[in-house]
């Protein structure tokens, strides 16, 4: 199942996704619940001319955010009120928010 929509909705449904997806987001200055995201199985995705970026991601102008495996781990280590902040912290610091 692929997802395209707000980060907050992705968070809500995170447990229902396969662990081996990657999540891309629109460029952002501050990650927010409304940040637009999409999930893709990058190992099977059609690729852009660079041979690496998924074509759909390139067409949307999105950027690599976090793997679904990491997202699900982050959400296990935080509560729902802190979810967006914890994801942002993980992306920036490669660690879980205490």
């Amino acid at each position, binding site marked *: 199942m692929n997802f395209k929509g707000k980060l907050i909705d992705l968070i809500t449904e995170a447990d229902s996704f396969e662990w081996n997806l990657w999540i891309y987001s629109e460029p952002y200055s501050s990650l927010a619940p409304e940040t637009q995201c999409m999930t893709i199985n990058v190992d099977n995705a059609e690729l852009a001319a660079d041979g690496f970026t998924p074509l759909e991601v390139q067409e949307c102008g999105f950027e690599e955010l976090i*793997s679904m495996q990491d997202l699900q781990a982050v959400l296990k280590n935080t509560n729902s009120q802190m979810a967006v902040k914890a994801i942002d912290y993980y992306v920036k610091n490669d660690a879980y928010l205490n």
Partner: protein
Amino acid sequence: MSVDDESSIRDDLTVAKENNFDEQRVEGAKFLIAVTTGIGGGILGGKIGNKVFDKKDEDVGKSNGSEGNATKASELTVRPADSPYYSTVYEIKLPPNTYPNVSRQRHNQLANESLHKQFESDSTFAAKMEVQYPGIVDGVKPGARGAYSRTAPTKDVTWHHAPEKGQLELLPIDHHTSSGAVQNTLHPEGKGGYSDWGKE
């Protein structure tokens, strides 16, 4: 420790020893260490082996470990939940031209390639790993397009960016996500390796 806990560990060890695992105790923490053929020679500097990381005030992340691998037998994890230690299943040193500012996806591909080549050169190691982490051998094989997967080999493990530059370690996912003291061993001062040497 309750009698039930002791029984669980004994049962676990029985399974482990049948699969050529040895027990190792490190300052009260207990791990199951697979008997391996030793240091591997992966294309990317891959290394079979377990490093049981020890958290000390001035010595975070230093290996005190011995050769071997893995930390689980059957489905039971014997690592105490509050342990500051974690174990690695496999580790590689990334080539210097693959950091900083190379994506995590690319790092996963390089690590999976190394592990795949290690499996191909050491079928005994591959078989043991498959027992511990079902699907791991297929999980690191190149896909239909010839590319290596951009994810971890299976949902039960993860590639961890260690504090040392270029070092990726394959960990049981439950060690990586465990709360408590181990987080300061894995991510000293709340920062992981990718945020240090992985980015400019």
